């Protein structure tokens, strides 16, 4: 179990992979981001993307799933207050395979809540060509190691 005290700035971890399908792109967009270039492959050909692309929020959500599956279970993480500097850098298209690289930037104990601490990560989603499609500065809250005795 990785507690706040065990987190080391500079640590880099990578997740497994997720290949996204056109059906998944359309299903997410129907519910959360019904702009035409996320819904209709034909119409999307005339868009700035030249074809069907995933909603940036779908890419972000897939990124979260990959991180939960690969790392969060090992840790005393209790959630996140938010994030900064999210950038959607390259389109994500049907058939693309995403993986996530997470680099610990720094950590600080909570002033108000002595039982937890806050960790910042650089989170990068990469496609199968090694291009960064999305990056953000994630913030995670971790329980501190319980005192012995």
């Amino acid at each position, binding site marked *: 179990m990785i507690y706040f005290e065990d987190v080391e700035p500079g640590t880099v971890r990578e997740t497994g992979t997720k290949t996204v399908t056109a059906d998944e792109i359309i299903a997410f967009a129907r*519910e959360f*981001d019904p702009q035409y270039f996320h819904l209709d492959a034909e119409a999307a050909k005339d868009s700035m993307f030249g074809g069907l692309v995933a*909603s940036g929020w779908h890419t*972000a*959500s897939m990124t979260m799933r990959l991180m939960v599956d690969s790392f969060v279970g090992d840790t005393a993480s*209790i959630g996140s207050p938010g994030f900064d500097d*999210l950038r959607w850098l390259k389109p994500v298209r049907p058939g693309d395979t995403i993986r996530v690289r997470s680099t610990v930037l720094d950590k600080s104990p909570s002033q108000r809540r002595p039982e937890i601490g806050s960790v910042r990560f650089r989170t990068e989603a990469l496609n199968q060509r090694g291009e960064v499609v999305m990056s953000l500065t994630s913030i995670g809250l971790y329980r501190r190691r319980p005192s012995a005795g």
Partner: protein
Amino acid sequence: MTGVSRLYWDDFRAGQAFELGSRTVSKEEIVRFARAFDPQPFHVDEAAAQRYPYGGLIASGWHTASMVMRMFVDGLLAERAPSMGSPGVDELRWLKPVRPGDTVTLTLHVVETRASRSKPDRGLVIVRHELRNQSGETVMTMLSKGFFPRRPAGAAA
């Protein structure tokens, strides 16, 4: 698009506010989203959620953000102000949990507009999204940036 006035970059001004409606989130939706995208215990299992400091099952922050996007598209981007894409968002903060049965309401505040130097057909609009629950508490805020087309010559103002 009858009765809906089209907004171009030129029509946005710092200080404007747009009320983009409300939606109620069910436990079923919370669990379905979390199972697909954020299966941490406090998002998928009522019993497991008791071990965390959130007082019960709560929505994934990514689900809250995705609902905000839906309301943004429905209320503005789909018909009134089609955008030319977004480079990203900044300063997203999940301030209070969103719980099953909560009704969340979105207000957009225009923070800044900037003409594009490199592309004269568009400009950038920076908006602060503010999502409140039925008790008037702010549950989420973020800054988003979007490119919008400039009004073409001859288009009605």
